[in-house]
């Protein structure tokens, strides 16, 4: 059983479980949307004293912070007990493309070229992660949601704005992948 779970899970299992998570939260009287947590964190840190956008009762959103804590624990549990130590099973074409940018073949889930402490110590490595995070935080709040709030919850409710947002996600992702990464890594 544990051997079976330790293999990577197929896409249809993942898709089903993600839909189930959205439905569970609906039955708990909440709505699946992860990026709201950034706003909650800002508010909890007192950002509301200076910026009206953060003046709301963030304590109503503690459930989402608990979900966040669960997500961290889930990552830890998977890493500690539910993996077989194999590298991510990404396609050969992707490995080849990334090799051209100077990324070695995957060993775990994340590339050492971005997520090692050594790279973090370099100016470039630090600012890639910080800049990427800034874009994620700014963009998700501007768009009013991320992959969970728009791509899953919004599209499931057939919301046109969510489709627009998802189109935007892909425009941005394609620009980074095909224009920005070659500039940064070759």
């Amino acid at each position, binding site marked *: 059983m544990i051997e079976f779970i330790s293999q990577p899970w197929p896409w*249809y299992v993942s898709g089903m479980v993600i839909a189930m*998570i959205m439905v569970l939260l609906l039955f708990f009287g909440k709505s699946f949307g992860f*990026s709201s947590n950034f706003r909650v*964190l800002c508010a909890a840190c007192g950002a509301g004293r200076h910026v009206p956008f953060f003046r709301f009762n963030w304590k109503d959103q503690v459930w989402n912070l608990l979900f966040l804590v669960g997500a961290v*624990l889930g990552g830890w549990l998977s890493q500690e007990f539910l993996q077989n130590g194999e590298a991510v099973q990404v396609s050969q074409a992707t490995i080849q493309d990334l090799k051209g940018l100077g990324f070695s073949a995957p060993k775990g889930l994340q590339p050492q070229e971005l997520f090692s402490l050594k790279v973090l110590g370099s100016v470039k490595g630090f600012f890639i992660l910080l800049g990427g995070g800034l874009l994620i935080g700014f*963009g998700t709040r501007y768009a009013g949601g991320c*992959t969970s709030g728009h791509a899953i919850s919004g*599209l499931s*409710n057939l919301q046109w*704005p969510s489709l627009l947002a998802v189109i935007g996600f892909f425009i941005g992702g394609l620009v980074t992948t095909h224009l920005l990464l070659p500039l940064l890594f070759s």
Partner: protein
Amino acid sequence: MKGLKFIITGLLFGIVMSKSEAVSWYRIQEMFRFQAFHMFGIMGTAVTLGVLAVFLIKRFQLRDVQGERITFQPKEKGIIRYLVGGTIFGLGWALVGSCPGPLFVNLGQGYWPILVAIAGGVLGTYFYGVLRDRLPH
């Protein structure tokens, strides 16, 4: 413990995103290069089942655990904020290889440097809050 169910749901999220490799930078790159069906399969399955679930919840007027009717907040109208905001998010998503949820799952996985991206996410959200009234929506 009213909050426990949210921790457990989050735990399930962290496990499924890890085990289907959806938290991997490589998988996001593969998706934006259209070199595998994997990520599209995950989202396609989730949305197909999600549409069905939302339809059934509305059709049978289902209630949540507190006995309240489950309602859905329609997204505010607008074009610019969704396209521009979405594009800005997409730029960061492909760079870091994680959307907001997986940022935290990766933290649990032990990829400590991702804390810098998480700090960036909080700061970016703060900047949006500061600039909000001056941005077109």
